[in-house]
């Protein structure tokens, strides 16, 4: 029959294949929807015998990968603004097995689409191997004694995931009304059509009827409805602001005596403001007309252990950002020192600012010990140490750093009198 949506003459399936019956019912179901034109329908097919049906359709058709048709259809459905368009994914039990998560995601989001799984309990195209949906005891060429474990109950899974409409039916006779009802659901609807593949299913399970197989395996036929929900529409920001709307460029308002590239490593404990202190230092450098780079490093669990930042400052543009031996190192905690001990030992010059609680590693660098944690607590220890470093190093005015701090979110929180320590 040359249907309005789908020609069911010369379908590319074996004689007696259940796909014929599902296709004929689908054509009738689509034709029963008043006012629906083929160009209102987007059919997305999977890989497998059912996936070669595209050319029979007069609708839009999309043919992708094995197991991914539901995700691909979900992408199309989310991008399709007109809720009257019908996005339909056609796949087999193999595609549903490999792409189970796509089904759950579409159901959970209630994406406006209909999924029809043609469950013939095996992979037909590749020679009849068992799928996740193959029921216990069902025989296949590679498991001639029958599958030892039960199949996934897709309907239960998707119902539990929040799908508004889930159906399982036996693909026998006329089930147009079931398909039409599924297609009418606003949001996600799911149909599992149980069939049998004559080429492999019948051959290896002779004389077993589809309904007996379902019954013996405890597979329920039915319709499960979930709570009514609005179909999912992705949130849109209509006029998102530029990422530079809040990012303020820094003007050069100080002068720095720095002549050469200068490398500073800050190392402390996670949560003690090491990364933001490094950013403040670099921003201060920009306010002096210098160039700067900053890299952070910390364990993957960002809340514990060390937190280390490498900052490069230079009057000339910086390209290479590696630091083999730094000019100055600040370590304000045992975690921090542990991370930079090797670097400190390699230093033959420069200065190491070490919290008074820490044992200095063997180094040729000058070691300045001070209780950096005492004046403003552990969270500001790096700021105290940096202030001291700038006072001593003569690379750029300390005021440039203090100005940046004052303008920052810390500006009102910090006792600037205590920040600046004499010492070393």
């Amino acid at each position, binding site marked *: 029959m040359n249907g309005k949506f789908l020609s069911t003459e010369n379908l590319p399936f074996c004689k007696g294949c259940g796909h014929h019956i599902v296709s004929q019912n689908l054509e009738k179901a689509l034709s029963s929807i008043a006012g629906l034109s*083929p*160009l209102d329908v*987007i059919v997305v097919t999977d890989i497998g015998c059912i996936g*070669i049906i*595209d050319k029979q359709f*007069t*609708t*839009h*058709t*999309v*043919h*992708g*990968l094995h197991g*991914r048709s539901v*995700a*691909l*259809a*979900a*992408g*199309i*459905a*989310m*991008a*399709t603004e*007109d809720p009257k*368009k019908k996005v339909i994914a056609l796949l087999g039990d193999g595609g549903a097995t490999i792409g189970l*998560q*796509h089904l759950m*995601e579409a159901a959970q989001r209630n994406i406006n689409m209909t999924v029809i799984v043609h469950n013939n309990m095996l992979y037909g195209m590749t020679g009849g191997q068992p799928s996740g949906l193959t029921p216990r005891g069902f025989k296949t060429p590679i498991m001639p004694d029958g599958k030892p474990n039960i199949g996934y109950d897709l309907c239960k899974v998707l119902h539990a995931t929040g799908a508004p409409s889930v159906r399982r039916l036996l693909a026998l006779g006329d089930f147009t009304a079931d398909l039409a009802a599924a297609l009418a659901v606003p949001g996600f609807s799911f149909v599992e059509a149980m069939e049998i593949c004559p080429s492999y299913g019948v051959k290896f399970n002779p004389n077993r009827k589809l309904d007996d197989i379902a019954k013996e395996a405890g597979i329920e036929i039915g319709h499960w409805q979930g709570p009514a929900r609005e179909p999912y529409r*992705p*949130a*849109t*920001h*209509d006029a*998102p*602001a*530029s*990422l*530079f709307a809040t*990012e303020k*460029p*820094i003007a*050069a308002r100080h002068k720095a005596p720095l002549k050469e590239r200068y490398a500073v490593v800050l190392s402390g404990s996670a949560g003690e403001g090491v990364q933001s202190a490094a*950013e403040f230092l*670099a*921003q201060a*450098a*920009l306010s002096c007309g210098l*160039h*700067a*780079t*900053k*890299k952070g*490093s910390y364990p*993957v669990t960002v809340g514990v252990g060390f937190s280390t930042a490498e900052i490069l400052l230079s009057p000339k543009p*910086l*390209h*290479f*950002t*590696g630091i083999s031996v730094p000019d100055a190192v600040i370590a304000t905690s045992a975690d921090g020192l542990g991370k930079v001990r090797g670097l400190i030992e390699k230093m033959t010059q420069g200065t190491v600012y070490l919290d008074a609680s820490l044992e200095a590693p063997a180094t040729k660098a000058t070691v300045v010990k001070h209780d950096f944690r005492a004046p403003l607590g552990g969270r500001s220890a790096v700021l105290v140490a940096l202030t001291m470093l700038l006072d001593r190093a003569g690379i750029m005015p300390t005021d440039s750093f203090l100005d940046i701090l004052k303008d920052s979110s810390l500006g009102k929180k910090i006792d600037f009198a205590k920040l600046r320590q004499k010492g070393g």
Partner: protein
Amino acid sequence: MSERYFIDNSRLIIEATARAGADVFIGYPITPANLLYLYASQRFPVVLPAPDEITTLQWMAGYAAAGKLPVTATSYPGLALMIESIGMSHMMELPMVIILAQRLGPATGTATGGATGDISLLHGINSGGYPIPTLCISDPRDAWELSAKAVHIADHLRCPVILLASKETVMTVQDVDPAVMTPIEPVRRRFYTGDAPYRPYEPESDGVPPLLPVGDTRHQVRITASTHDRSAALQHSTPEALANSRRLAEKVEKNVGDYTLFDWDDDAADTVVVAYDVTAAAAREAVALLRAGGRKASLFIPKTLFPVPPKYFEILGRYKKVVIAEENLQGQYREILFGKRGRDGVRGVTAVGRLITPEEIAAEVRS
């Protein structure tokens, strides 16, 4: 000195792709690409968190088929999951941009370690040898310009484009002159407007068929990833279908002149230093060091890695000595350019798990 930002390239990349007209970002978290996802969530008109990287690419393909221009950002473990779907999108001819922030492998490797180890993989990413345009950033200007260019190429060539970066080039914060942020022309999507039935894979003179979103109300649209003829009908291996597959490579290669991007600082020397991604910065300093020491050296920074523009061979062919520095085990781009055997005068500087320094590049030039 004028005002400067202190920012990472991730910010420039996302702002530039959005300005260029990319309109959907599908994200799945992975270090070191998380800043890109975060900025995209603030900047893109639509941002969807996907449950995995396969879904990410499939949703992108769905959006692209419906006429949008999607972007994602990932690293090798995510890319590995995406590859089948990238191949699908390439065969379907769907525009999209995949930002790949490389990290230290193999396998899960070191999430916060830098590397440029995915070059061979990208070179052969499609079964059958069909190249995917791959642009590699090496500095803030690239992060801006190449990101916009990637969106334009994806649209013009109707294909996925890879914007290549690495942990170092997307996470390091640096001072950036706002002048690098030149005006970006948004893509003007051109969809099929004819009255004749739409043939989805009927190319125009540039080898690219005009796109028409699925769901169109005038024409039937067919899209497929299986071997197909110009009408998108599946074919085993008819001459028309095989020619259609061949066109996928030809459209990318034939138009490479439109996106052959490189920096070339020719010093009339017999030696050229070649580097991309983060190593390009070390190469710049190496060349400056050499010149300061009286040794002439030229610098070549390829930005369009794939397909390899024929122009590269013309340029590199002028030098007796070619020193290629890159952060992977065997010198992947060097092997792609010159083969495993190489040729006289072609040398590699490689490192794994650390930055290549300007000094070691300079030493290789002098040796």
